[in-house]
């Protein structure tokens, strides 16, 4: 039971990350590899506040989302002028900088040792320490994030991002403010990723920089691509499949030392298989990287 609850909590956190990534990659066709950076910003801000000021969960969640959203605004402003490979490089540099800060700003982030001893979430005076209790919290948060994403994934709002991902020049000729639309989505996406980070902090009650590397960003992209970019529920399907996939190894009795490596191979295979045979993902509609934008 504990085990099942744990798996579901992990799925919930990755579903939120996938939903956040889908807003920019799926709907607007913008590939960013900075998602783990924003995920980490949320995690560190919440951990810092909880440890230093003993502020409650809801406040820390709000502050983290606002900080990450603000950072998204600052980073997105200049980098969203770029497209394709150039955007990947710009977001990659942000990802590297953020990780550098996590690792080296020891007085605030604890450096490579990370931050530990984070207090549990208190709801109505009682601490949530069991995976089952935390699952309720994650499910509720994921539901709110899904609701926000659903508002953005339907017309009239979604029409402009869809137009941008296919032909950004035409979208502008049609009178759409391309820069503002992309930036709006990027800010919301960054804040959402931070929410996942806050949940991670309170669930593990320990964080260190290794959870927020570019590999994590790529894993989040894999969730979106495997699940189905541009479909509201695609990232949820992706999170379920990719979190459960390595669990099969555990059931097969493969030793844990080998399992970690095999897991990386599985993720790589899933991504390559999708790109080759099902570019729109399991339930998606948008073949990422296949639908070239006209000059």
């Amino acid at each position, binding site marked *: 039971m504990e085990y099942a609850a744990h798996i579901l909590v992990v799925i919930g956190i990755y579903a939120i990350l996938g939903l956040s990534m889908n807003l920019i990659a799926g709907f607007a066709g913008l590939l960013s590899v900075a998602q783990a950076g924003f995920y980490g910003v949320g995690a560190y801000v919440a951990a810092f506040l909880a440890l230093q000021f003993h502020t409650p969960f809801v406040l820390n969640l709000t502050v983290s989302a606002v900080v990450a959203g603000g950072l998204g605004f600052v980073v997105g402003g200049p980098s969203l002028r770029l497209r394709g490979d150039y955007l990947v490089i710009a977001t990659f540099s942000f990802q590297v900088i953020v990780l550098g800060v996590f690792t080296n700003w020891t007085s605030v982030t604890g450096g490579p040792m990370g931050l530990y001893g984070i207090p549990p979430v208190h709801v109505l005076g009682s601490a949530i320490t069991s995976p089952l209790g935390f699952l309720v919290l994650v499910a509720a948060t994921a539901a709110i994030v899904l609701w926000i994403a659903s508002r953005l994934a339907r*017309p*009239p709002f979604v*029409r402009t991002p869809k137009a941008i991902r296919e032909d950004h020049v035409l979208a502008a000729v049609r*009178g759409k403010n391309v820069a503002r639309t992309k930036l709006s989505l990027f800010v919301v996406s960054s804040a959402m990723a931070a929410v996942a980070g806050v949940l991670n902090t309170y669930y593990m009650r320990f964080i260190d920089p290794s959870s927020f590397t570019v590999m994590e960003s790529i894993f989040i992209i894999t969730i979106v691509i495997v699940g189905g970019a541009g479909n509201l529920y695609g990232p949820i399907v992706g999170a379920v499949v990719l979190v459960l996939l390595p669990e099969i190894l555990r059931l097969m009795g493969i030793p844990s030392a080998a399992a970690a490596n095999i897991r990386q191979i599985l993720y790589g295979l899933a991504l390559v298989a999708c790109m080759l045979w099902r570019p729109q993902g399991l339930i998606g509609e948008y073949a990422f990287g296949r639908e070239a934008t006209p000059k």
Partner: protein
Amino acid sequence: MTSLVGMQSLSKHFNGVVALADFSCAVAEREILGLLGPNGAGKTTLFNVLTGLLAPDSGAADFKGTALIGRPVHKIANLGIARTFQNLRLIRRITVLENVLLCFKNQPGENLFNVFFRPGLCKRHEAGIREKALELLQTAGLADKANDLADNLSYGQQKLLSIVCCLAADADLLLLDEPIAGIAPEMAERILAIIADLPNQGKSAIVIEHDIDALKGIAHRMIFMDAGRKICEGAPDDVLNDPRVIEAYLD
């Protein structure tokens, strides 16, 4: 007649190739201007300059008294200039109806704040434009295709749709780049009828078209250009009888 759009001495070079050279003209309200000229004469370049896709090397352009040069593409569109493309640009992976809906201006539901805090407003506006879009498609004879992907329309229907999109934008000036090139005569008739009706709705248009007979039927005035320059300008019959035009088209 008051002038809707004016262009003064526009020039544009691409690596030494002249696309526009000291080009000036004006279009009045409710006027259809036909633009003639051989390939490479600079006609499409002119449209790209007017819509903000290209910055001219020199010169000025204004629309309803507002300077156009240096203004961002989407702002120019929202002033009331809509265009079609010679190589037919549509958002192909969304439906015909969505393509039309995309073109309505000032939609409250495109704003993040409104999406979350004024959903009622967004919903009402969306319902309103949906009705108007269906009406436009009905008039154009595309109503039965409303829910098809734009990509699945025939070439002629796509050209028709791109003009319906300009109508949805409720632009005062339409820049139409070869609206009937390469399509069946019956569809061409439908498109020409829509263009001919624009002045009755208070709209103006600049039409690039190689089909001289068709252009003659709808244009109030014509300009013939070559190598980026305006060669002659006037009533359709005068322009078409100008020896320089005859020479260019017989070559």
